[in-house]
């Protein structure tokens, strides 16, 4: 049927059910194509025959009863088909979120329990160990354990000064400021220096390990 108008289109054309634009296109084709014109004529003939048959139906036919019977038959057919058809997984596309939501809930629960109960120093230690394992850096867990065994640690960085000891920590920052310098002392202290942009006041914050 390459080059011809589709049969469904021709059927609708024959019954006058095509929209205006498609009717014009189909009409233009039918006028130039004998095969399609012939098909359109066939559709029209069949339609006229059906119309005549309908006109011959008895006057006292019970259309409501007929409709109810047809509906009942269709339902029985559908139920029977469902009984014998292979069982397809029910509603897979609609329930995918359930396991995802359950997993998210469990993760939230574990994260919350961790946040509430595990000291941040332990979290940092485990994080460093995992990082070292992932990147293959030397030392790994044994080196971290050795570092943790040494006792209190003081540190100074752009985020302020911090003392970490026995699962506790002490940090000092200055709100809204970036330190202009930081350093540590081998006698067990770490310092950062801050300059207030407006007052030019210098503040030095320090933590001590004893």
């Amino acid at each position, binding site marked *: 049927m390459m080059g011809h108008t589709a049969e469904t289109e021709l059927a609708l054309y024959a019954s006058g059910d095509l929209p205006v634009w498609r009717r014009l296109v189909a009409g233009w084709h039918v006028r130039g194509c004998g095969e399609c014109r012939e098909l359109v004529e066939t559709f029209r003939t069949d339609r006229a025959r059906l119309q005549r048959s309908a006109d011959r139906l008895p006057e006292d036919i019970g259309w409501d009863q007929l409709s109810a019977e047809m509906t009942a038959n269709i339902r029985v057919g559908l139920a029977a088909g469902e009984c014998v058809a292979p069982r397809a997984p029910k509603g897979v596309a609609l329930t995918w979120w359930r396991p995802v939501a359950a997993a998210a809930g469990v993760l939230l629960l574990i994260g919350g329990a961790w946040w509430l109960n595990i000291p941040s120093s332990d979290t940092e230690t485990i994080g460093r160990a995992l990082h070292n394992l992932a990147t293959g850096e030397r030392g790994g867990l044994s080196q971290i354990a050795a570092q943790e065994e040494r006792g209190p640690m003081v540190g100074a960085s752009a985020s302020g000064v911090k003392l970490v000891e026995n699962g506790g920590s002490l940090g000092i920052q200055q709100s809204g400021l970036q330190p202009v310098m930081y350093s540590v002392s081998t006698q067990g202290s770490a310092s950062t220096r801050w300059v207030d942009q407006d007052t030019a006041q210098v503040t*030095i914050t320090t933590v001590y390990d004893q």
Partner: protein
Amino acid sequence: MTSKAIPIFVAVLAWSATGQSLNHKIDLGKDSPVGLLSEDFGNSNVIARGGASQIEVNASLSLRNSSQKRIRSMTLMVYAQDGAAGGKGSVAVPTLDAAPGETFSIGIKTLLVRPVASGNPAVEVKLDGILFDDLSFYGPDTLHSQRTMTVWELEAQRDRKYFKSLLETAGAEALRKEMLASLARQGDRSSMGVQMVRGRATNVETDRELQFASLDIPESPIELSNGLARIAGNEARGPRFDVRNRSGRAVQHLEIGWLVKGQQGREFQAASVPGDVKLAPNQSGQVTQDATLRFDRPLTIESMSAFVSSVEFADGSQWIPSRSALDQPRLRQVVAPSPEEQHLTQIYNRKGLQALIDELKKF
């Protein structure tokens, strides 16, 4: 069930994260030269996190100098009252300069995480020291603040004298150039996050010895030599120096600046090495520290240098390097400017040359 559990869990989290108010105490000492006008701990709180308490101190103290002398600097100690955290912190203002009767404020922002103890957690803010313009000192000096604050004051006097002299002899334009040069140096200074652990590890992998290059300051009362530290990976530990007192006065304490140069050629002041060594004139000794320095980023240490940054004599007086001594290019690039120099450059940067000149005229 999951959909019901999540809101309950979120509610529990929200409840546990709600802070309780913080008990606090402020101790300025008896007959203190400063009086507390007001305190604001309004944004401070305590948050329980399972087995730990997170104590957040956001405080502002308004104080008045009730003495007859100018206060040049002040140090406040901050610590948990039960001492469970095992450490303490301090907040110091080295460029205060409060005249008699003048009021000033000090802000404290501290985060303390420690195991939950019985009773309500409490934080104490205690005066550790006040240094006056005549170098006299008030306070318990628990943190050895007097020594540090005296060095800050000597540096302030040295730098203010230098800038005033420059203004008088070479004019305002020369002062402006010097300020710009200082700001440029401060911007160019390298720094790196560092951690320090006292003691030494027993199973750290193979290390190597690396010698310090001694940056000699001819005017220094202490001669530094044979500096050595052990390097292992990202760490340097166990610094050791030979020192000789070449002055005619007995020395009781000194501080050594520890400079580190990485493979990328960046050099920075990583730490200071204090030493309580009693040295008679011409006597030699050794400064050793059983400590490990660790950098928070990967660093291959290529070389290390050291210089004497301050010396305390037996009578309590101190020596610091002069401006000309620090002018040698090697030191000038890496040694941190004094707090006073940063204070003055910030005034210039923010308010301009005239404001700086007015500030220099104050004292």
